[in-house]
């Protein structure tokens, strides 16, 4: 019991930090530009594919640096020559633009790498068991993923609070017009933030693509959940994105572990429910099967009872 609890917490935190690498960029982009970027998880997928491609020629370590850079470049071009033009036509146009982008990127991936998963593997240097606690092995690559995620988190925090560009970004979160009137090139800051957010998503793809699977559906698997995190935590709030990531990461990981049903719990308490009782499908449903629904349930409840999210400042 203790063993599985420790590992579940560990895995939940790891999954949460991975979510945060996507959620932080998404929420910053929204906070500054008001753009809800539906294609954010597509940049995560691009990161994984770029890493696969680079690692074929130059190995994993080169991919770790080059793939996020490549994604950042594509992000910068997307903002500069796509979003910025569309921006004049309002938020609905922007939303539709990023929505279209999801499909464009997916089709490009189909064309270049095919419809089946590519063989992107954990590097040999990290493919060993770091330690064994009780009876469960803990892979070294998991520790590496966690390390990268924590490193990124500290990096973002220092960048935003200790550097001038970070302060310009923070100021632009509340009054971008005023930042421009003080002489800062706000459109360029937008491009940088967009590219940076894409690079973070790309990096998440690099370290997760080989641990999970690199395939054309991975953007769809990750996209909605990142949206849940960001809305749940409060759109535009980095602190909210962190808390939201960890809560959703832990909640989902725990839910998957719950192999008992309400009926089995009641049976333990001496209240047996017969197989043909009213709504028996519900009573005998394993709670783990609710896991995938849980984040969306939280999202819907949050929107009803606290629309600005846990730590968001916007009322709308």
């Amino acid at each position, binding site marked *: 019991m203790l063993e599985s609890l420790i590992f579940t917490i560990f895995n939940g935190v790891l999954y949460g930090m991975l979510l945060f690498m996507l959620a932080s960029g998404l929420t910053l982009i929204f906070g500054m530009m008001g753009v809800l970027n539906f294609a954010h998880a597509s940049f995560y997928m691009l990161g994984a594919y770029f890493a696969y491609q680079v690692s074929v020629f130059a190995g994993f370590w080169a991919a770790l640096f080059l793939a996020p850079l490549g994604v950042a470049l594509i992000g910068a071009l997307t903002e500069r020559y796509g979003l910025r033009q569309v921006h004049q036509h309002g938020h609905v146009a922007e939303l539709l633009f990023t929505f279209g982008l999801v499909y464009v990127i997916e089709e490009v991936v189909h064309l270049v790498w095919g419809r089946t998963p590519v063989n992107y593997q954990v590097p040999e240097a990290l493919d060993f068991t770091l330690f064994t606690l009780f009876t469960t092995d803990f892979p070294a690559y998991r520790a590496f993923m966690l390390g990268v995620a924590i490193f990124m988190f500290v990096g973002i925090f220092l960048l935003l609070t200790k550097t*001038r560009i970070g*302060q*310009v970004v*923070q*100021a632009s*979160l*509340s*009054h971008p*017009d*005023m*930042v*421009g*009137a*003080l*002489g*800062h*090139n*706000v*459109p360029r800051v937008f491009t940088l933030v967009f590219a940076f957010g894409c690079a973070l998503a790309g990096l998440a793809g690099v370290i997760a693509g080989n641990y999970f699977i690199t395939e054309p559906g991975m953007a769809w698997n990750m996209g909605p959940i990142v949206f849940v995190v960001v809305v749940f935590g409060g759109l535009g709030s980095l602190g909210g994105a962190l808390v939201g990531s960890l809560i959703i990461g832990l909640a989902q990981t725990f839910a998957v572990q719950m192999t008992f049903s309400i009926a089995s719990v009641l049976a333990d308490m001496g209240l047996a429910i017969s197989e043909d009782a009213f709504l028996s499908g519900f009573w005998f449903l394993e709670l783990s099967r609710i896991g995938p629904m849980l984040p969306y349930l939280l999202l819907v409840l949050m929107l009803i009872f606290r629309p600005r999210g846990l730590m968001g400042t916007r009322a709308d």
Partner: protein
Amino acid sequence: MLEVKGLHAFYGKSHILHGVDMNIGKGEIVSLLGRNGVGRTTTCKSIMGLVEPVGNITYNGEKISGMEPHQIAHRGIGYVPEDRLIFPGLTTRQNLELGMKKSGQEGRWKLDDAYKLFPRLEERAETPAEVLSGGEQQMLTMCRTLMGDPELIMIDEPTEGLAPQIVKQVGEFLEQIASSGMSVLLIEQKLSIALKVSQRLYVMGHGEIVFEGTPSDLEANESVRKEWLEV
């Protein structure tokens, strides 16, 4: 130095400015007066590039209408907005530093000058700016723009809603920057302050300039004051 000719401005379909003409000379203190909602703020924002200007605006002979706000700021125009727009999450000092156009590059106005003008800002230097009082925020927003070392500063209703003793401080501030040789475009409701500090005044009514002259011209012209200023 600044010349505005036939300036029109729109918010969506509503036509706000109907051909505004005005100019400001080097080192001149000019006030733009008028009742609520006549378009004074919109005039400022059009000059700053925050609202798209239709018409011709030149600054030191260069056409600035159509430029981005940051380009206009780098030409030497500063803007102090009426809603103050303090950056929350940053301290007072960080707000002031963001007024500098390059990191750590102080112009003729230094952090210490801001603290000298308003000692209160130095006391509050490490305080998150969003918890400052209204008067302190007004001091901060004016000094933040000063840090960018503008040649012409546009100040939109700096005394609105402030206690009399802070209004007095703001008045002294205006006299100080005026004596430094900076040009000022002051937007005001309070006729007393405008008459005292400015060399020339414009009165705006319904998106047009309806009067231009010196303070004594305006004091002599009772009909303009009755029709366009008094409530």
